[in-house]
């Protein structure tokens, strides 16, 4: 399918917070009650529309265990957006956010949009982290924030799409240099027949063509 832009996302956060479930809910619109664990990295992709333009999201879903942190660091390269996920029923996962954020800031493009996600909002009775705490953390660090439930799909769509909107706005403002693929943004194949970097023609607003 043709697209105007391709954004690379990376999903990070402690193990077991529901990163893979969020991805599955977003790409396949389903929740898997039998959980699987991610070793290394897994992938997802979906097309969305923003401002009438087709945008392809290429999502890297990483392993959460700390042992793999050094490997995860190499995946930040070229990411335009990051979803930093914690589990509202496990305070530990919220406490580790600072480390994750440091890592993300250090190894990614400085313009990378980071969305903070408090997942498992359906488990209200087991909540350990108040929504206000998440909001405060996000405000303090300049992140967008949302509470989601990969199980009920609440806010999942919004989390991915709002991140894309933010990236899109940054492109419009000229903050992102879309010529530089290290920013995690590619222009659709029509503009870039060889799939490599290309001279920017106009605003890049025309629809992409060709096949991905």
């Amino acid at each position: 399918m043709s697209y105007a832009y391709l954004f690379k996302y990376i999903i990070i956060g402690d193990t077991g917070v529901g990163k893979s479930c969020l991805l599955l809910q977003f790409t396949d619109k389903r929740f898997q009650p039998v959980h699987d664990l991610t070793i290394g990295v897994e992938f997802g992709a979906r097309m969305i529309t923003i401002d009438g333009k087709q945008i392809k999201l290429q999502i890297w879903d990483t392993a959460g265990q700390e042992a793999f942190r050094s490997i995860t660091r190499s995946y930040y390269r070229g990411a335009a957006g990051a979803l930093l996920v914690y589990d509202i029923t496990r305070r530990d996962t919220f406490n580790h956010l600072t480390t994750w954020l440091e890592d993300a800031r250090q190894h990614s493009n400085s313009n990378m949009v980071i969305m903070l996600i408090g997942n498992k909002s359906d488990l209200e009775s087991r909540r350990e982290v108040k929504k206000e705490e998440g909001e405060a953390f996000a405000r303090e660090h300049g992140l967008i924030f949302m509470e989601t439930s990969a199980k009920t799909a609440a806010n999942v769509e919004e989390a991915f799409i709002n991140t894309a909107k933010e990236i899109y706005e940054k492109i419009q403002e000229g903050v992102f240099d879309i010529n530089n693929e290290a920013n995690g943004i590619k222009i659709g194949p029509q503009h870039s027949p060889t799939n490599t970097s290309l001279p920017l023609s106009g605003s890049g607003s025309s629809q992409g063509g060709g096949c991905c």
Partner: protein
Amino acid sequence: MLADAVNAGVDFGCNKNEPKQNGCDVSKVDIQSSCKVPKTKNGIVFPINELVNPTIDAVLNQVPLIYDPITKQLLLQSEFDELRLNSERNGCTKNLVLIDDHPKEKEFIHERKLDENGTQIVSNNDNLDVNNKDVVEKTQIDVDAPQNETSSNVFDDSDIESSPLPFLSSVYKPKKSSLSATFASASYSLSSSLHNVLNRLKKKNGINNETFATSTTALILENRPPHLPAKSIDEEVKHKHEYEEMVKEAKRKEAKDAKTLRKITNKRKKEEDRVIELIKVWQKDLLPNWSQVKNTKKVHDIWWVGIPPSIREKVWKLAIGNDLNLTHELYEICVSRSREKVWTFLTSEGESVADVIKLDVSRTFPHLGLFQENGPYHETLSQLLGAYVCYRPDISYVQGMSFLAGMLLLNMEVSDAFICLANLLNNQILMSFYRVDPTFMNAYYSTYQVFFRENLPLLYKHFADQQLTPDLYLMDWVYSLFSRSLPLDVSTHVWDLILRDGEEFIFRVALGILDMYKDILIKFDFINLAQYLTKLPDEIDSQSLFTSVAAIKMVVGNEKLTFNQVLSSFINSKV
């Protein structure tokens, strides 16, 4: 069920030889009065209270039942006898119509009229009850049917005589063949009345007091109803011929099915014999002389097809060995120490080891339901992993280990699994990956790339063009030794051979997977490749994978460098 078997009205129409204008003699069987067993509205009542301390067995023993092999139903002795008596009284079993006590039946049948299109009009009979509606539907079929169809029934007399229960065969067999013949002859348009009958046939076990038409053979052979002109001889001959063809076709199909079944059975038998033979060879020739024969070609060939499950445990333990000289006692010590310590361990970042193990045990082979909470191996696996953390706190628990440990637990006792896990993780490749040692990991990736380019040059170039680096899909395969990504039977077979050939077989399987899917992979872009390889199709079978794996050469260049030689050169250049 009992009442239903009797009440299902059967209209066999006329005997073939009877003059048509005589029509069918509609007779009645009154079920209520014919039953000796007292009945209530809801069914039959048995004198249970005559029994002292009635039990279900005792009650059932008192009920006189007859098994009807044709309908595969149980019949009450009394109902069975009454039914036969009635049919004999009628003098013509084939003309039997069983109608629930309804005196208007005869008139009703005669009251039906035809309009000029041949469509049936049923006079508005106030006496119509549920049972009569059934009759309406029956008669509608007769009329909706094309000219050459009749409601009367041809019965092959020899058929009746040869049946062990001639009466039952005439009563019940038609019910079955009527439906199949309806489909087989395909002469009826699927009119609403046919739909009704078919629906009712489906529901028949649940409905009492039913009455509907049946036939003994294909409807195509039936005579016409009395009010229609008889078939011409030509037509009858033609129909007979068509019917014979149908029977022949059915027999042919039966024979073919039987042949297929025989083939499958033979194949299975052969496979079983092969495995039995293999087990003998393993047990008699190989295992007793393991250290001498383990590297011979004969053993390697027999190993290639996979180790028979019953001796897998033995071979795995021998192949993994115990260089670390671990004992079962050590396992016990580690378990008891882990109870005190592991569950309070934290990693440098404050991650609780216990939390991660707890999370992962439930996520190990999730589809098996063995390791999940409340599963039979949940505790065992947690304990085993906890013991390993105590044994090697420097490595601790790393995601992926639960799959290795789980795989071992599926094949051996927990203390043996502990010894095997520790020795397995002590291998260079697993140790360097589980320690996340970038130098060694990259050396392995680079070596893999050399063999990738050698074996699949086109795909190698395509991957390079798409910027798909091997670490993205190899990590999972190495960490879990394919047990997370391949079906269990396939990954078990892969493990058999990894234990034969060592680490290079991991990369040979990786290339085998790429080879197996090369035609699809060559068309994919980065994201499709990455998605496909990190989530392989479910239906991979061992045979096709191993065919691909067999084709992968594990020597490169003119110098015929082995995997280890290439690997050493990369390690030496980095270290």
